[in-house]
């Protein structure tokens, strides 16, 4: 087993370096220095700024520095766009806002998705099933942007503006709802105000994809022999569905959740941009728009590491469940 884990890790090391190299090279095609210079800056200022940014060093040296930071996960360099803040600090402070949206969203969408899929599979081929699946396709076809724009407008902006008695959601912004240090504690009220609407939107967006996937899993499961056996021994249909099938269908469900775990960390880029939540997704997109290389590079390094770790973890879990995998 340990040999298998070690092999998986070793084969994935080049992937990590490949991701680093890809982003590093893609970012070196354009010269970003002009972006940060004033209108009438002379060549001396250009050279000066280039040296400050560390772009005057030969490419291999720059890449070696980047790899050094990425391997030790110690991003000391300053962000170019947010002067005086180190990249590591930005990454650290943006994790919690991202997670406070994506984790509840992933949990809820999986739970509701599996439940609806079970319902659809229970009524397979009949009206409720086809209605649910039509709804899923319709939901999938609506743009994410539409959900965000109209969700924010009708659930946050209109109630505030019209002065309704119930206006629970903020239009934009974020305040920490987990306090650390002196007055440590949770403030669920703030979470509801700033995070709940994005979570709801995120759940609704993923609902279409999730239910279709889980329904396909359930339907495939209904063709198995153990279902026939259960029917033969006289088990009732609900019992078959919710006891036998659900347990066996958990493997693909868990695989899917595992594969989306890395994306939990980066948060939902669009939601964070639109609701002004200072999470990972918003930081990375503003970094790309502002050509903030240190931040982009650090972000990609962290994400690639998490992604590869989750891939290895999934492989290992598979190997534990199915020993044949270990030998291939």
């Amino acid at each position, binding site marked *: 087993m340990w040999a298998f884990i070690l092999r998986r890790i070793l084969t*994935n090391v*080049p*992937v*990590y370096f*490949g*991701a680093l190299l*890809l*982003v590093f090279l*893609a*970012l070196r*095609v*354009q*010269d970003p220095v002009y972006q940060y210079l004033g209108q009438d800056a002379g060549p001396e200022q250009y050279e000066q700024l280039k040296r400050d940014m560390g772009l005057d060093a030969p490419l291999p040296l720059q890449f070696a520095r980047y790899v050094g930071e990425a391997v030790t996960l110690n991003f000391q360099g300053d962000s170019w766009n947010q002067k005086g803040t180190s990249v590591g600090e930005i990454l650290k402070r943006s994790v919690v806002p991202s997670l406070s949206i994506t984790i509840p969203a992933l949990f809820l969408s999986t739970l509701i998705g599996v439940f609806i899929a079970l319902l659809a599979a229970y009524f397979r081929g009949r009206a409720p099933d086809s209605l649910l699946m039509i709804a899923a*396709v*319709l939901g*999938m*076809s*609506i*743009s*994410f*942007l*539409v959900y965000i*724009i*109209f969700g924010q*407008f009708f659930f946050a*902006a209109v109630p505030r503006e019209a002065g309704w008695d119930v206006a629970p959601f903020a239009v934009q912004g974020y305040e920490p709802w987990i306090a650390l240090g002196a007055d440590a504690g949770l403030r669920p009220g703030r979470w509801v105000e700033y995070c709940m609407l994005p979570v709801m939107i995120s759940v609704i967006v993923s609902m279409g994809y999730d239910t*279709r*996937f889980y329904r*396909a*899993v359930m339907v*495939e499961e209904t063709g198995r022999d153990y279902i026939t056996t259960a029917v033969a021994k006289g088990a009732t249909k609900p019992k078959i569905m919710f006891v036998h099938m659900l347990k066996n269908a958990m493997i*693909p469900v868990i695989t899917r959740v595992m594969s989306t775990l890395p*994306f939990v960390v*980066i948060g939902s*880029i*669009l939601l964070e*941009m639109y609701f002004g939540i200072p999470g990972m997704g918003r930081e*990375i*997109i503003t970094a*790309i*728009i502002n*050509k903030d290389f240190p931040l*982009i590079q650090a*972000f*990609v390094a962290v*994400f*690639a590491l998490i*992604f*590869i770790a989750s*891939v290895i973890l999934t492989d290992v879990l598979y190997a534990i469940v199915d020993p044949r995998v270990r030998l291939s």
Partner: protein
Amino acid sequence: MRAIRRLLASRSWRKFTSNRLAMASLGVIGLYLLVALLGFLGVIHREDTQVRVLPDQTPGFLEREGFTDRATDARWYLQRTRQRVDRALDDPEAYGRLMSELALAERTVIDVPLEEMARLLEAAEARMVEVDAALDVRDEVLDEQLEIDLALQRLERRRGMDPDERVARRAELLDERATVSARLPAADEAGIAAVERVKEAIAEFQPMPSGLDGLWYGVRTFLGSDAQGRSISMKALFSVRIAFQVGFVVAVISVIIGTLLGASAGFFGGWVDYLVMYLVSVLSSIPTLVLLGVLVYMFFGHPLFDNPAEHPGLALVPVYCAMCLTFWVSTCRVIRGEVLKIKSLEYVQAATSIGFGRLYILFKHVVPNTAHLMFINLSLLFIGAIKSEVILSFLGLGVKGQPSWGVMISQAKDDISVYFFWEVVTASALMFGLVLAFNVVSDALQDAFDPKHVS
């Protein structure tokens, strides 16, 4: 070609064509394609999306504007004409140019001497006096209403008053308010009639186009105008072309790259497989939107691709490149899996034993048998490309210098807060139709050709 012919003769294809919903969706896609062709043929030109056709933020055909909005519109027409006529009176040379500035697409100003023009304009302005009078009446009514409301508030707050007297006084005030309010509809109606008369007078010097031009002007205006008075319908229809351009180019190129790499990886195995799978893992270990953003940025700085005013087509190249480099991955995985299965089938063994070359077998016998997967992926990637284009454009990393659905949504997202939905709804409704049609078609394709697949 033979592979496609065989595909069209297969039982799965018949199953696909007997799916009525899918056929209807293909029809819808055909309609969109026609609109896109209008864009490609230049019937709907990029400049059509940039000319002013109406006052700012005019609602579309379904919404009837109230009196004040109509009065503002009429005043807008008069003021912009007055500005130019005054300037022409100072500088008669520039008269022709100034009048051509007034044109709203097909709705041009009539060609008459300056004095005649000034006279017509004055006639229209004279009628505007009636509108102003009606607006004054309206303001008076509203003022009276406000006063009564304030009196009501004061009444509630006053202390030491006999309850009966309070009730009586309140009823009196409410009565008064009702009579005052009752004057409002009549005043508004008179005002609207006055505005219509002003509009007739405006049409004297800027007539509504008739015939074919009138029809075309109707198409331009029936969905209203955006914050700069540009036609929403033209922008939305032009965006169909952009969507098809992006979707088609990206889907075709990504499927070709994905098939070639995936098939060779599966068929040859060994270091080819290792290399391709290495590329796939590297690309998937970076989040798609981030990778797209970085790649778009990589191409954008080049002067050739960053000049949408002169090369609107080339300005899309960064988007194509970024998406093609990212999207082939999913096709590659699917095709590799299928080729691994096909490789061990008898007909491949037979071809090997006859002595055909490996490349010949790959392209003659293996790749053609993945044609159905290529079709499914083409349709899926088309949707993916359109959706990503909209999101990238929304974030400012996509289409530049020309309208697309994403650009429209991002430009109009602030109009929502003043309850102006026309632009966002038009863009998203058109996009919804196309994506829905493609979703239905890809489902039907999957059902027909790859029924065991878990999506």
